[in-house]
Each structure stands twice: as structure tokens, then as C-alpha cells.
């Protein structure tokens, strides 16, 4: 598990800016003052970014991957129970094993536990809304949770975020770090959402999970599948 092992395997390919949203995306108003105005400066990858933190199972608590249980006080959380699973892969399709994922989400009513969330929808005393898990040797992760609700926000008149789950991933390097959001198929709010639409057309569709009857557990929970692709190693490893 020594991070130095990763380093020997060479550089990571670049961030693919045809896939990622630009910093400035004026329809999402908060980007206007929070987007760098000067171009990024290309940087050769050195040891300090080709390596990255490696988390182990000691970072996890037993119920971290089950959001229907890790916030319980006196009963089941309210909402449509779902299983969210998928694989974390690199760009060449290789699994990213034993890497940590963090998720957070609103409850079934569209309300976050966060002290800053003033949306007038009920908090669920049995739902906290945050979880973690590790991918297995095949890059697969799995969470049990409830389907989050849509919620209003102040970006523009009658703005509502489509239902989504926030994902945070590490991968093998500080460079493979990714924070994203997973959406649900057929959500009518998606075409209206400036955050989703900030991603280039043709790429944003990768953020929509797939309803998966084969993941669905009879009499228990609906299944959704969401694969995540991180930056991979460059085709030709660099010397030294």
C-alpha cells in the first residue's frame, strides 16, 4: 500500500476539459465571482501530486455504507429505499480497487441536515445523509440509502435542484481526486439545472444513473447503477 509504488507507474493523463464544466458558467450565478480569470498554468507532475492519501478500512465505521441505518434514532428513515452501486474505473477501463468514496445527500423531502439549509421541508430524525465506503478488488462500491428529494435554491426564480447524491472520490493520486453529483434517470428538472448543464453536452449524461432491475432487491429496495471514471495513467509512462 506504499504510495511510492504508484509513483513508479508514471504520469496521469490530463484532466479532459471536454468532459468537465468550465469554471465560469454564468447561468450558475455563484461561478461568476469564484472562477479563476487567468488560464491554468501547465505543471509537470511531480512526486507530490502523483502520490496521494491511501485510506484503509479503519477509516470506515460499520454502518457507513448504509444511510438507512447510520442515522437512525428510533426507526426507519422516511423515503423510497434505494441501492446505489457501480464501479470506479480509470480511462482504460481498469478497476480502481480499494479506493474511498464519500457521499452526502438531502433526505427524501429535499432537506439537508446542514445548519445552513433553511428549506421549509421536514428534517428526518432518522436520516443523517452522509456515508462512506471502499471499492472492492474489482472497483465496485455499494450504498444503501433513500432517494433524495428535489430542493429549491436561490439561483434564479423558481430554481429547483434535481434529485442528486454528491460523490467524492480519491483514486490512487492527489490528481485523481473527483467531486461530482449523481442524478436519476428521467428527472424533468435536469434540462433546467444550471449545475448539470454546466457540463458540456454529451458528457453530462454520464452523471445520470441507470435504473437497474438486476440491482433491485424484491420487496426491499430499488436499484440504481452509477459507474465513475477517474483519470488514468498515460499511455506511455514517462521516464524518471
Amino acid at each position, binding site marked *: 500500500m506504499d504510495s*511510492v509504488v504508484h509513483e513508479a507507474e508514471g504520469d496521469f493523463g490530463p484532466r479532459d476539459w471536454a468532459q468537465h464544466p468550465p469554471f465560469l458558467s454564468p447561468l450558475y450565478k455563484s461561478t461568476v465571482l469564484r472562477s479563476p480569470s487567468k488560464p491554468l498554468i501547465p505543471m509537470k507532475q511531480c512526486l*507530490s501530486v502523483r502520490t496521494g492519501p491511501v485510506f484503509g478500512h479503519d477509516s470506515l465505521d460499520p454502518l457507513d455504507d448504509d444511510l438507512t441505518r447510520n442515522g437512525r434514532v428510533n426507526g426507519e428513515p422516511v423515503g423510497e429505499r434505494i441501492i446505489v452501486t457501480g464501479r470506479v474505473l480509470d480511462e482504460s477501463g481498469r478497476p480502481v480497487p480499494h479506493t474511498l468514496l464519500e457521499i*452526502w445527500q438531502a433526505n427524501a423531502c429535499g432537506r439537508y*441536515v446542514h445548519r445552513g439549509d433553511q428549506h421549509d421541508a421536514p428534517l428526518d430524525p432518522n436520516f443523517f*445523509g452522509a456515508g462512506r465506503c471502499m471499492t472492492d478488488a474489482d472497483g465496485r462500491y455499494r450504498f444503501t440509502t433513500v432517494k433524495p428529494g428535489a430542493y429549491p435554491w436561490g439561483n434564479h426564480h423558481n430554481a429547483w435542484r434535481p434529485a442528486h447524491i454528491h460523490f467524492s472520490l480519491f483514486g490512487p493520486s492527489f490528481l485523481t481526486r473527483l467531486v461530482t453529483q449523481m442524478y436519476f434517470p428521467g428527472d424533468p428538472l435536469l434540462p433546467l439545472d444550471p449545475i448539470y448543464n454546466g457540463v458540456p453536452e454529451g458528457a453530462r449524461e454520464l452523471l445520470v444513473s441507470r435504473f437497474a432491475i438486476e440491482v433491485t432487491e424484491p420487496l426491499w429496495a430499488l436499484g440504481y447503477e452509477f459507474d465513475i471514471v477517474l483519470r488514468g495513467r498515460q499511455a506511455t509512462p514517462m521516464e524518471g
Partner: protein
Amino acid sequence: MSQTLKQTPSQTVGPYFAYAWTPERYGRRPLATNRLAADLLSAGGPPGEPIRIEGIVRDGEGAPIRDCVVEIWQARTDGTHAPGAAGFGRCGTDDQGRYAFDTVKPGTCGDDHAPHIAVTVFARGMLSHVFTRLHFSDEAAANAEDPVLATVPADRRDTLIARRGETPGSVVYRFDIRLQGEGETVFFDC
């Protein structure tokens, strides 16, 4: 190795990451904190100089950003990275946009780079995160030879230099981050 899959697009952390990323205030165990020194020292290797890094994250108008997270990744004092996650830190900004890390000053990294810390910044309003690099003001000679600083226009280099200050019993480096506008921090594509 051919690149057959497309990278999953980035999205903003939004305003409500705190209970997942800095959940101490909700009575939950955090994955990582802004107190790195103990883990780095117990990870083996020679002890280093304990330091504090602090600063304010500001937007294009100079206003502090309170829904922002700074993550760092650094070597130990001997320039090697600890196995595991020692050397990784995470800090959410407070209502005044302030962040801080209690850590150990890193040494010269394996290659010919001056001592530095890799930094990423996430915030509501940032659809993709940014990378930057913290260098130390008391390493002028090494900074002058640093291959990354050399690629940065001279008039912007000081945005990457944390200023050393000493008070009785502590060493504090000041590293403000400006996302946009006057004194905009240099961000890297790497």
C-alpha cells in the same frame, strides 16, 4: 494502454458538504482533519518542525468564502510521503473564510523541487476544483531553483509563497487564496 472511457465530469461540492466532510460539529468521526502533525510524526521518519498554516479564501471581489474546503497533501520532513493517509489534511473555511492546518514543515521532495505542499480548493460555485502549490518564504534559495515556480510569471509567483511569521512557541505561515481578480492565486493544470 488505450483510453476507452471518458472521465466522469466534475460537479460543485455545493453549500452542504460540511456534515460529510467536516462532521465533527455533528458529532461524527471525520475522515480527515486539519491537524496533521501528530499523524505525520507517528508515521515514522525524522521529526519535523511543527508549523501552522493559515489564510483566508476570497472571491473576485475580495469577499471571504465561507463554504469552501481546502485540502492539502504533503511529504514528511525527509521529503518522502508517509504510507496511508498521513500527510493529507482537510479544512472547511469558517464564516470569515478562514482555514488553518497544524502540520509539520515538509522537506525537499524526491526530485529537484523546493519544499512545498499540494493544495486543492473546492467551493460552492466551483464546478471543478483547482490545484495550487504552497511554497515557503524562508526557502528563497530553493524556490529560486524550483522548476514549477520557474514556469510562473515573476509577478504572480508571490501568490504561491506562504509568509513565515514567528510568535513565542509557534511558527505560522500565512497563505491567502484568491480565486479571482486582484492577486489571483496561480492555479495549475497538472
